[in-house]
């Protein structure tokens, strides 16, 4: 259970299973509905270009209480594929990303952070999790170095 009472839309799980089993999707971006009541799917894609995906997070918007638009947090699941540092071939890691830019307003940041567990717990089969708060945190190499460190 999250600590905010926010619910997870069924489609979130459906799309996740599609990504996990169907192997056609590369990533899913989730967001909170405008009334902050549910977590919903914002977008799914099979685009393999990390930087396009990253761009989408960086440009994500959300409305504050007064209806003014500002930077917005998001959740995402990315089927991260990488070469092992040892050169022994490729690996896949289904990675959960909690994106909450430091310069977003406190309201959305609070709501996303306190609701994250609701989504993460309903998705079965996540191999890694990244908590990202600035643009460096979602550079391809930042995430890659994380995975290769332990290997």
């Amino acid at each position, binding site marked *: 259970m*999250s*600590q*905010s*009472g*926010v*619910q997870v839309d069924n489609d979130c799980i459906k799309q996740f299973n599609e990504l996990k089993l169907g192997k056609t999707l590369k990533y899913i971006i989730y967001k909170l509905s405008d*009334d*902050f*009541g549910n977590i919903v799917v914002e977008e799914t894609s099979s685009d393999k270009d990390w930087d396009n995906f990253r761009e989408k997070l960086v440009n994500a918007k959300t409305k504050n*209480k007064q209806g003014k638009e500002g930077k917005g*947090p998001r959740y995402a699941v990315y089927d991260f594929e990488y070469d092992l540092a040892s050169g022994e071939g490729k690996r896949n890691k289904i990675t959960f990303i*909690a994106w*909450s*830019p*430091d310069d*977003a307003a*406190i*309201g959305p*940041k*609070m*709501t*996303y*952070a*306190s609701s*994250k*567990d609701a989504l*993460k717990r309903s998705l079965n089969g996540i191999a890694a999790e990244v*908590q990202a*708060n*600035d643009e460096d945190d979602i550079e391809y190499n930042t995430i890659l170095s994380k995975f290769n460190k332990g290997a």
Partner: protein
Amino acid sequence: MASQTLNSSMQPTDVYGGDEVSAIILDPGYSSVRAGFAGEDTPKSFVNSHYGVNESGTVFGDDAIHNPLAALDIRNPMSKEGIVEDWDTATRLWEYSITSRLTSFKQADPRTNGLNDDLKDMDVEMDGIEEGEKPLEEHPLLMTETAWNSPKNREKSIEIAMESWGCPAFWLARNSVMAAFGAGKATALVVDVGASTASVLAIHDGLILKKSVQKSHLAGNWLSSQLRTLFETSEPKVELVPHYMIMSKSPVDAGAPAQATYRKYEKSPTDSFRALEEERVLTEFKESVVQVWPGPGRLNSNNQMGMTNLEYAKGQPGRVFEMPDGYNQMWGVERFSVSEGMFDEKAALPIPGEQPITKAQTIPEMVKASVNAVDMDLRSQLLQNIVVTGGTTLINGFTDRLNNELVAMYPSARIKIQAAGLTAERRFGSWIGGSILGSLGTFHQMWISRKEYEEFGANVVEKRCK
């Protein structure tokens, strides 16, 4: 009362379970109690936790406790660790902080709301007035607590909310978790330096890792003690004379003795009253003069230019502070040396009657101990997600210094500190977090309802509020 029907487009947006009543957020600390309505940006009510007692009764709030004529004994219902010691008074203090400023229900009795200084017939008919109507019957209450609050105290909180105040619903939130969420992080290392306590603890997926909790007294009040030692040992000695003792003063040159006439009181105010008033002067001094040496290195370590940082800091511009009696002087390197003990135990000034502080009590060592207490895999993530909160961290240079200390302590790790830029968010971080959470439409599923309380008893709070 004539009521107008609202059509759906006119419905208020801040609803609680379809009702138009908003929740109240109560964030009690050692130095102040913060209270206000969920959904608002800052707490409407900000009340000093100290209260005054004299033969005619008890008074609360800044309007009443600073009266030198009232022969008040100044006390605090909280222990030095931010935990309630005196429940009866704490309950009344919190009730005062809610009823005196939050206007949705009846104002407190004018004799007790602190607006009238005549203390003669205080408290006489309190019980009669309260009867039949409990102050929070229409408002769910979200209260914050420290990570080290005891199970017994948590149960006591819900009992007060339900029994004494008649709340329809209740929730208890950890203040450090609120601070982490407010920074957009479900996993974080929270460094919280308030008035009485400095603490460091790890949060993973919104839950506090109990074994990581570290705390010490090197916080705002300790810094005040350092200032007292500084004043005592200055040459000439700096007299700490609070405002209420000054009748008039004439301007004097820097360093020259004060030229002031002092007030005489028939019944001289108590020592505890004087201490409270001295503290106000010290707070002003902390806010306007004190700095933390930002690093790199400690104040007494050598820098690249072949001198100590202390010598370098001596060359930095000083700041003038005028005491209430008119005495004023330029404070130079002392601005840095009084706070140095928070980071370097050897630099702490001795406090009469207290043990010297230990290395383990300093902030960087608490971070180390906290990080070492958690799983290896989590450590690097925590060091990248440090959240700094609490009023004392607003002292200039604090965050820079912490960063420099940790970079030196963990040369191969990535250190990232997040500290809210807005002063209000740093001082009221946990209140604001509670305010946002309590105003979410979905939060009505979280509240412990009166029915649940009646069915399961006070220990429902242990099961529900982790």
